[in-house]
Structure formats: C-alpha cells, structure tokens
C-alpha cells in the first residue's frame, strides 16, 4: 500500500555540507510508513525519480523526514526545494526493518546510510545502540536526534576527527562480544555491510541490511533494481524496491 502525490514541505534544514533534511507533510503516507521504507522522489527536469529512505516518521503530525546528500544533478535539484513548496513523492515503498519487540538492537549507519537508522532506533529508544561512521567530523549527522530518542550513540570517523578513530565494525564487534543484541540493522556502503553481515553471522546475531540499487518504478513492476541474494541455497536476483530495501544479512550475496 502506497500513495503518490505532491505534498507540502513543512521544514527544510541543511544539516551538514550538502546534506538536507526535509520534513514533508503527508498524513496518508505517514500513516502507512514503517522504519526502513523509502520514497521515490521526483526531481524537476529529470526523468527518473530518486529513491530516498524515510528517515523518521511522525504519525501524529502526519509527517515524514527525508535526509539526503547531494550526489549528482538530481539530488542537487532536490536541494533547491524550499519550505512551503511541494515535493512529488511515491511512498512508502519496500519492506521496512523487522522490529524485535522488547529486544535490544544495534543500528549501524555509514555516511548517508545513517538516516534510515533513525526511525528504527527510535523504536528501541534506550535499548538501541547507534553506531555511526563518517569520513570526517564535519559531515556527521543526526547524532542529536539519536541522543534525543534516548539511544546510546557511538560515533566513528575514518580520520579520527571525532569519536572513535576507524570503522564502525570495531565497536560493533566489541558489542557483539560483550552484550549480544537481539538484532543488528545496517545501512551504508557494500563493503561495510558485508563486514557487518559477516560479524553478525560469526556471533550468531540476526542482521538486517538496507541495500541500494538504481531504480525506475520503485514499486516492483519494472524489474530493473536487482541485487544478488541466496535463498534456500539457490542464487537468485531479488529486487531492492520490492523484496528490499531491507534484506536479511545472510540472504545477500556479497561476493
């Protein structure tokens, strides 16, 4: 179940260099949305929509947040959108994260893979540890939001300019060793996801990863958005928009 429409942008913030945070007023979509799902966003003048994760959902206010980084010409165009203006989206799309009721979770976000972690981390509040990795301190985002949700936050930077110096896998492994969570969620570059999925397998912890692929329809009709997965020992091509974007870590063929 999803909707398409033009919705009012209730808020717009630049939260880091080239990273924008839009709050969109779309009650019908907010009512349906779950953490981990995404939106297909139209960029004026571009033929294909851009997939952007739903970062956060406020069911009461009827809003969702979309946090995106300017990567190319389409996201650059999206960055021109203004508060009070309209944004054309199809949402919510895909499958969200599995919530382990009453459980403890670790949410691992790498770079612009961090936003989709907010919605799911909030489900766990203080039972969530959020490990975020960024290239450098200046582009770290959403740390206050995670803190405000009561989550424990661990910030890593590749260059050591803030938090732990190094990759997210080190603090994750520490945690997996010390106090096993019920589930690990991850979004970020493929090598990071691969490392995380391997660690989780090693420590016997369920892991869900959110994948990316170039898309057209976003709803499962065109079959362009394939990723390689394994089901029942068999290699199959799944579709990120419909079978994902959230996949079980063991299901993904990272080779």
């Amino acid at each position, binding site marked *: 179940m999803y909707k398409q429409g033009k919705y009012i942008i209730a808020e717009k913030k630049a939260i880091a260099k080239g990273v924008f945070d839009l709050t969109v007023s779309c009650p019908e979509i907010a009512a349906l949305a779950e953490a981990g799902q995404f939106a297909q966003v139209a960029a004026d003048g571009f033929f294909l929509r851009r997939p952007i994760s739903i970062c956060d959902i406020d069911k009461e206010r009827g809003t969702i947040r979309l946090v995106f980084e300017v990567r190319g010409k389409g996201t650059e165009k999206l960055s021109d959108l203004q508060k009070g203006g309209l944004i054309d989206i199809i949402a919510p799309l895909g499958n969200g994260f599995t919530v382990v009721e009453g459980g403890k979770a670790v949410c691992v976000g790498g770079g612009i893979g961090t936003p989709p972690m907010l919605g799911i981390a909030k489900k766990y509040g203080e039972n969530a540890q959020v490990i975020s990795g960024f290239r450098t301190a200046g582009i770290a985002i959403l740390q206050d939001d995670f803190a405000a949700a009561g989550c424990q936050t661990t910030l890593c930077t590749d260059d050591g300019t803030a938090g732990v110096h190094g990759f997210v896998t080190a603090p994750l492994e520490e945690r997996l060793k010390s106090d096993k969570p019920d589930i690990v969620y991850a979004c970020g570059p493929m090598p990071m996801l691969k490392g995380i999925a391997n660690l989780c397998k090693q420590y016997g912890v369920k892991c869900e990863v959110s994948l990316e692929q170039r898309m057209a329809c976003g709803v499962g*009709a065109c079959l*362009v958005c*394939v990723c390689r997965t394994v089901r029942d020992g068999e290699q199959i091509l799944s579709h990120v928009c419909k079978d994902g974007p959230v996949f079980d870590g063991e299901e993904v063929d990272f080779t």
Partner: protein
Amino acid sequence: MSERLKVNICGVEFKNPVIPASGTYGYGREYESLYPLSKLGGISVKGTTLNPRQGNQGPRVAETPAGMLNSVGLQNGGVKKFLEYEMPNLLTKDIRIIANIAGASVEECAELASLIDPSEVDMVELNISCPNVKQGGAAFGTDCAVAAAVTAAVRKELPHKPLMVKLSPNVTSITDIAKSVEAAGADALSLINTLLGMRIDIRTRRPILKNNVGGLSGPAVFPVAVRMVWQVANAVKVPIVGMGGIATWEDAVEMMMAGASAVQVGAAIFADPYAPVKIVDGLEQYCIDNSIANISEIVGTVQPW
C-alpha cells in the same frame, strides 16, 4: 465507461485504447494500490519465456535526457507461472490481457504459442525485438526472412488468438520488416520496442549498465516512434498499436493520428504512475471537446503535406 473510447483491434474489443507496455507494469499487481486495473483498456504483461529467466545482472537502468535505458533481459517466471499464477488474477480485473512472449529460437516461440493458445488471454504479442537478450530477441526483428519465419511458426500454433508482432526500431527499414511479418500472418503490429543505447559513468570509466548497452525508451524516442508508426501504417493493412515515449493524452492523440489504433504507455509510468489513467481521461475529454463519437475516427488521419 463511455462508448467514445472503445476500440477494436483485430476482433478484440478494448474499453479504451490505453495499454501499459510490456515490462513496465509487471502483471498489474503493483499499481492496484493506486487505481483499479479496470480503468485501462488492456495490459501487455511482462515478456514471458518458456522457462523462468533471471535476466541480466544489475545495474539494469540508466537515466538519459527525457528517457532511460534498461537492460532487464526478460526476467520472468516462465509461461507456466504466468498461466497458473498471473492469469487467474488478471481474469478478475476486467481488462484485456495481452500475453507478450519471447523465445530464444523459432521452435521455442512456437511452443510458447501452443501453450498460450488454449488459455484465456485476449491476444498474443510476439516480441521479436528485445535488445537485451543474446539469443532470439532483436536478432529476430532485424531480418525480414527471420522475422517472417518466426511469425509464421507462431501463427501456426495460435489458431484461437490474434497475433500481434512487436517490431524493433533498430533497423534500416521498418516498413520492410512490417510487410514481411504481415505477409507471414501477423494480425496486428506493435511498435516500437526500445532503441539500443549506452551510458558511461565517467568517474569509473565503466558502462552504467552491467550489460554495457540497453534499450532506450521514454519521451526522448517519441518522434522516432511517431515516424515509424506513420511509415508502417502506410505500408500495411493490419492494425497498429503504437508506443514509444507516450506520456500525455496529447501524445496518444498524435500517435493515433499517425496510424495507431491503440497505444501502449511504458516508461512514462515510472515518472507518473497515474499516467495511463490520465491519458484515458484526457482522451475522453478530447473526444467531448471535439465532438468525436469514437476515438477510432482519428486513427491515421494525419494529412501529410
């Protein structure tokens, strides 16, 4: 639904001339969140092969100016799954069902036809123009003799269904292919399939598509499609279903004036999933505004200079 939009294509009546194009609409399931399929005249389902196919590796899509490339490579569950799983669902939807089929050999196409003939599909669309598969595909659609042979073989195994043959635009003379296919027994023609194209990621110096090349569709190709429909309409007697870049009701009217009895809408759906419904509504209003009793009246009415 009004009488204004009813069209008849080789004996099959469509409540309106708007049909989502094969491969862009799955089997309709995904768009039912937005509107009932019954709003549309028909659906051309995802290309169906004898056996299930995984298709090509990803990425399978690249954006282009006013269009896109795809290199899906006919991923589908095979004809058995189509007949057993998709058909029963589609039959409840009050929409004409066009089975789009593709085979790696003449024999395979014929076998597919024989399996589909006893089913309740309304029409078969033989795809001899897929640019994204190694065997069959476009190779069938770019040579008159081969195109005729595969058409004849399928025609023979399809005694109970009208056969529409889908042509490739990647040819020197689409009218020659059209005439060969018509002579071989096609009851209708559909065109155009995608134009072969390529995009390169200049940072990585690699093609964006894992398949290196893919099929171009979307508004960019519209003028090429209109030209080809017009040329073919002037070369054959069988009805034509026109497609390639149609995004608005005005585009649909233009395509019909060029000679198409109905239209298929593909890539435009990705930009606006309501596009086919808006085209239906737009055509209805166009008929009202221009006192056109039935939309078929405009088919082929362009008057060349």
